[in-house]
């Protein structure tokens, strides 16, 4: 340890002080029990739901005179029109809109799932997608580079994404960028970008539960389905 490190250590030592409360085994045990109760309750609720559905199905088949519907209902794909950004999203199965943006993005920074300027969606397994857009004079290549640079500066992401591939978003050419950030986590973040009629669109995706790399293919597939539902204004 050199002089700077020692001084720094002394400083951290002086700043940190003493914890006001002890962490006890009893408190940890209570949380473990609470966690298990929640898990078991969720499993029990799922089992009960399955049993109810199965028994309803059996009951339906057992009634010979039950009137059959004239036509089988076709669940329509819900289509969301973004209030601020004008695109439409034909929601794939398992996806839903959480919130529309409260205001338009001003083009600065790198908004995320919690910002008021994004349309936020949640899909299968808790994977999220959020959309924001603003006018830009850059072409797609430059816009993709800017998006990565700003996200890297603000959110501690690697300067170079792990993958950068060409895709189509709502009929327009786009780039799909995969990265892990913050750098010390196993969070997969995907950013899809396109520039359409002078508007730069960014569609971000992550799974906030921090899924293991083994689950990333499922998150990626869900996000691809979400992207396929996007249509941009002509």
């Amino acid at each position, binding site marked *: 340890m050199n002089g*700077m490190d020692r001084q720094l250590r002394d400083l951290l030592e002086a700043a*940190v002080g003493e914890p006001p409360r*002890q*962490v006890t085994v009893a408190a*940890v045990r209570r949380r473990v029990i609470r966690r298990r109760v929640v898990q078991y309750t969720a499993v029990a609720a799922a089992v009960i739901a399955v049993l109810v559905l199965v028994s309803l199905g059996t009951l339906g088949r057992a009634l010979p005179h039950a009137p059959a519907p004239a036509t089988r209902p076709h669940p329509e794909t819900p289509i969301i029109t973004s209030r601020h950004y004008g695109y439409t999203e034909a929601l794939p199965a398992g996806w839903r809109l959480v919130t529309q943006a409260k205001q338009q993005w001003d083009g600065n920074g790198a908004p995320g799932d919690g910002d008021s300027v994004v349309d936020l969606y949640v899909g299968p397994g808790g994977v999220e997608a959020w959309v924001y857009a603003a006018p830009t004079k850059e072409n797609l290549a430059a816009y993709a580079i800017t998006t990565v640079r700003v996200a890297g500066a603000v959110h501690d992401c690697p300067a170079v994404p792990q993958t950068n591939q060409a895709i189509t978003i709502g009929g327009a050419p786009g780039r799909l960028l995969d990265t892990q950030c*913050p750098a010390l986590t196993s969070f997969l973040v995907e950013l899809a970008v396109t520039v359409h009629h002078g508007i730069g669109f960014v569609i971000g995706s992550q799974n906030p539960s921090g899924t293991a790399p083994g689950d990333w293919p499922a998150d990626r597939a869900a996000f691809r389905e979400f992207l396929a539902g996007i249509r941009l204004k002509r």
Partner: protein
Amino acid sequence: MDAEAEGFAQFVEARQRALQRTAWLLTGDWAAAEDLVQTALVRSWPRWERIRRRDDPEIYVRRAMLNTWSSWRRRRWWGERPSETVPDAQAVGDMATEVTVRIAVQSVLKSLTARQRAVVVLRVFDDLSEAQVAHVLDCAIGTVKSTMAQAVARLREDPRLAGLMDREPQ
């Protein structure tokens, strides 16, 4: 109480203070620090026997703590920005110096990236070796070295830290 539970209880009793202090340097808040340590311990307990046999338990718990902190940060990731100042007022009277140091250190740590903050806290404050830090952060030793160098370079340029180092630690 069986041997496993007893071993876990002894570990908690012996190490909770050190873990909480590390957690405070990461979070800057005692309530969050306590919650972070508890969460890491809750995650470690079910695997305690395996952890004890296979690994250094403290390294494992610290790893769980860092991962938990990262996931918390990740959830609020887009809302948190490195800041030059913290919105606290200085206290007056006898505690003023102590509080000034605390606020300044928090502010300096917040100006680092998450990885830099983690490396500085683990390497300098917890006195872990580079290999241990790499194990906790699940990265290469070279990454620990380069991150530490970047963090130190950044700290050297920080006038708040220079001002603090000019005075005797309290």
